[in-house]
């Protein structure tokens, strides 16, 4: 028989009646991981028939002594190099469960594979060579297990035959590694002396380790405890997609924690919109009744038409995650190029992705050495704490509150480059990347205001299409200019022809359109101009974002012309097109315009003249400290 071993053996398949536990074996290169795995398979009688004989013949053919590790090193390249390159999964049985063993490479070069393997594990075995003792990769792997959230670690001190099964040597190593793990907040479930090659301590105690009273490796694997059930935590349902395959609008995602059921009142973060779950949809039978718990992939419908998008997180009202543009995280870095302060990155948290900037780095260190801490960059295979400033608000939890929505990965050039745990979430902070140093104007603000006789401002006209925003904006512009001021009109449609030419009319694009309008307008306002923005801006949340950007310079004017008047005016012919079905996502005909609750001014243009309305805006600007002129001067302009 010429076939070589499959590295994962299907001979002991997991049925549906036994619990499956995933265990990763980590440790320094050459400390004997693959040998331990080979031995475990043998001791648990998990090897297919004839496998052992075949292994021995392969070894003989290669002129090498028999090695248990050949079992794993199924790839040609690996046998030639003598190291395990990638994560391999092997299944076997202990007394009470099916074990999936994830063999992770010890070679520093392949840390990304170790992480890929270890992130899937329920528990870990950390292996140490009795002769060599604790090495840098031992410490590094210990640290990474902690970062990956693997809390149960059994330590195996291998190659005890090389130190004559010395209890002293064993205790020395046991003390050192226990201290290291304890520092990281982990307690080893066991420290076990073994010889994987000879079999001592793997499945049976032998006379050579008579001084040792603890469990064997197999017993230790059998005794790992389940983690705290995610179902007991608050509901977190990150939205994967919205499906409209038929007349249902289904919000799809996986329940990461907690549970839900039809009728639950939910809040959609980060926007904070509230709705009720109408149904939980499924296939082939739908709808499904009863509670759906953590781990389920579900599709729900809501009782109202709300804008929901991929990346939002659904939770119960009163127990929602926080919305933030600022996070602190403890991360590990896997990319060749170090992560530097000020760097632009892509952050993925749940199903949300956001551009982001690294605004601070602290405690960057090689977890293998745990010395020479630095604060400028995090090198490959090192760890550190970073502050991240996000381009858009996201919903997140600290890791200590929720392990699923409290972890993130970082992508560079389309490839996962690092990951880590969210340490803290700062709500509502506006992000200012520290490496960006804007060049200040040569003029002082008061020089400009002395000439223009006004302070800078953002006058934001919002209202339905056809409500008269542009007409009013133009009248106001003419009026202010006539008085020697410096008004600048920013019409939503005009910007869409150029600066915002890349944006469409999806909700995300509308949000970005508003953000850019607000940023440009704010820049003008800071330089003393009055930016007059005329934009439908139907979303209350988007306008709130604009107000946050412009801050004290923001003046919102709600042009509250009744809908039927707007439609009868239809200056751009949009209503007619939308009624004919030729214009998608047109605000006006649907009821998707959210009127302001507390604008600085509300004007109904169906009830008054344009100049009358412009007067009122001027009065508001004067009253709120933008215009210096006395109110009486207004009369001259009529």
């Amino acid at each position: 028989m010429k076939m070589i071993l499959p590295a994962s053996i299907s001979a002991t398949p997991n049925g549906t009646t036994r619990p499956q536990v995933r265990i990763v074996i980590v440790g320094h290169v050459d400390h004997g991981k693959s040998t331990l795995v080979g031995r475990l398979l043998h001791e648990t009688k998990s090897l297919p028939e004839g496998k052992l004989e075949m292994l021995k013949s392969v070894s003989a053919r290669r002129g090498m002594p028999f090695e248990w590790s050949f079992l794993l090193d199924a790839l040609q390249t690996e046998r030639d190099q003598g190291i395990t390159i990638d994560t391999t999964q092997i299944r076997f049985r202990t007394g009470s469960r099916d074990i999936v063993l994830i063999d992770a490479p010890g070679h520093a070069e392949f840390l990304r594979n170790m992480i890929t393997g270890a992130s899937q594990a329920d528990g870990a075995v950390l292996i140490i060579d009795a002769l060599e003792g604790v090495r840098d990769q031992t410490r590094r792997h210990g640290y990474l297990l902690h970062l990956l959230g693997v809390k149960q670690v059994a330590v195996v001190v291998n190659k005890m035959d090389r130190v004559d099964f010395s209890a002293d040597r064993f205790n020395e190593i046991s003390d050192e590694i226990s201290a290291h793990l304890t520092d990281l907040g982990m307690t080893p479930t066991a420290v076990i002396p073994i010889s994987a090659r000879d079999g001592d301590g793997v499945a049976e105690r032998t006379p050579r380790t008579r001084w040792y009273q603890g469990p064997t490796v197999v017993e230790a694997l059998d005794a790992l405890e389940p983690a705290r059930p995610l179902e007991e935590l608050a509901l977190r349902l990150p939205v994967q997609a919205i499906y409209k395959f038929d007349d249902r609008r289904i919000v799809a995602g996986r329940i990461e924690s907690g549970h839900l059921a039809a009728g639950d009142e939910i809040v959609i973060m980060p926007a904070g919109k509230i709705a009720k779950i109408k149904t939980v949809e499924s296939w082939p039978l739908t709808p499904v009744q009863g509670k759906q718990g953590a781990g389920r992939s579900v599709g729900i419908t809501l009782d109202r038409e709300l804008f929901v998008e991929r990346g939002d997180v659904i939770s119960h009202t009163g127990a929602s995650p926080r919305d933030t543009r600022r996070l602190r995280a403890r991360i590990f870095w896997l990319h060749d190029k170090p992560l530097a302060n000020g760097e632009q990155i892509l952050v993925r948290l749940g199903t949300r992705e956001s551009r982001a900037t690294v605004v601070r780095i602290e405690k960057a260190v090689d977890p293998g050495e745990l010395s020479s801490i630095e604060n400028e960059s995090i090198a490959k295979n090192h760890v550190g704490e970073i502050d991240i400033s996000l381009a858009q608000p996201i919903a997140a939890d600290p890791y200590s509150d929720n392990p699923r929505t409290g972890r993130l990965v970082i992508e560079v050039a389309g490839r996962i480059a690092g990951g880590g745990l969210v340490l803290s979430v700062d709500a509502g902070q506006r992000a200012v990347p520290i490496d960006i140093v804007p060049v200040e104007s040569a003029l002082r603000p008061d020089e400009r205001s002395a000439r223009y006789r006004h302070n800078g401002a953002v006058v934001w006209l919002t209202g339905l299409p056809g409500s008269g925003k542009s007409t009013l904006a133009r009248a106001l512009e003419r009026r202010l200019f006539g008085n020697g001021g410096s008004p600048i009109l920013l019409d939503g449609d005009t910007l869409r022809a150029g600066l915002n030419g890349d944006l469409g009319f999806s909700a995300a694009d509308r949000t970005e359109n508003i953000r850019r309008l607000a940023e440009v307008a704010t820049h003008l306002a800071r330089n003393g101009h009055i930016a007059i923005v005329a934009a439908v801006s139907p979303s209350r949340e988007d306008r709130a974002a604009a107000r946050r950007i412009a801050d004290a310079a923001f003046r919102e004017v709600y042009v509250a012309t009744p809908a039927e008047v707007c439609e009868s005016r239809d200056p751009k012919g949009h209503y007619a097109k939308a009624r004919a079905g030729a214009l998608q996502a047109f605000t006006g005909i649907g009821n998707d315009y959210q009127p302001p609750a507390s604008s600085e001014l509300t004007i109904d243009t169906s009830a008054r003249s344009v100049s009358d309305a412009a007067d009122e805006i001027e009065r508001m600007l004067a009253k709120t400290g933008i215009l210096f002129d006395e109110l009486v001067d207004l009369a001259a302009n009529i």
Partner: protein
Amino acid sequence: MHVLNNESAKDPSRWVAPANGNAIPQIALAARSGAPSIDHLDALEAQSIYILREAFARLKKLALLWSLGKDSNVMIWLARKAFLGRVPFPALHVDTGKKFPEMYAFRDRYGKEWELDLRVEPCPPIETIDPTLPPAARSAARKTEGLKLALAKFGFDGLIAGIRRDEEATRAKERVFSPRGTEGGWDVRDQPPEFWDQFNASPPPGAHLRIHPILHWTEADIWAYTKRENIPIIPLYLAKDGKRYRSLGDADITFPVASAAANIEEILAELEATKVPERSGRALDHETEDAFERLRVAGYL
């Protein structure tokens, strides 16, 4: 984690002692906590649905590779669950022309019944394939070439494939989202990290991704799920005259194994006891030590 929330699969009430005790001492099972609401198959299903939905959300032009076997039938079933009834992308059958008649009958029937957008693409003749490959591998490599032609024709940026880690050594090393070069090749030495269900889904222009939604399933899981969900199967999997097929490929390079399992329950019982690998009847796996790996590096499934 690939099987999410693994804890919930551990229902103490359902734990059973091993069938006939091996030498492993039993550990007391005290203080296990949690009454899970989902079982092992539910957890597998939910994870696969999550992966399928991620693929659909993040890639532009997807297709699902339908080999007509038990695994890809489960995969189609999962896709119908993920998308509430109908698979919203094409099902691609790269046809060597040498499948069993029962497989073609199955394809014709269920392609319609499941409302699949079925695309059948042929493979180039054997003469065009690398003559240094061993005979069975060379024959199977036609599928790789057929796949490349189909990719060029349709411009898919993602191919969903029903491979599993427990089938075969090199498949055990796969990622869930696995990048392929512009030639369809797999760089096993430089696979990107993948953890916490965050996937690398940005193939460079001209390249594509393989997506493996049932990578974490075992052969027994597939059968247990097929039974639970009543998914139709090709009768070749059931024993006839003391033999059955455990894995289906081209008729000329696939062989049955000795078996008396005439229904799925009996298959599951057989799998509990067997030590014979699943793909032992697939000649191409066994010709040389590295034949299968060479096929996979070149783009085979």
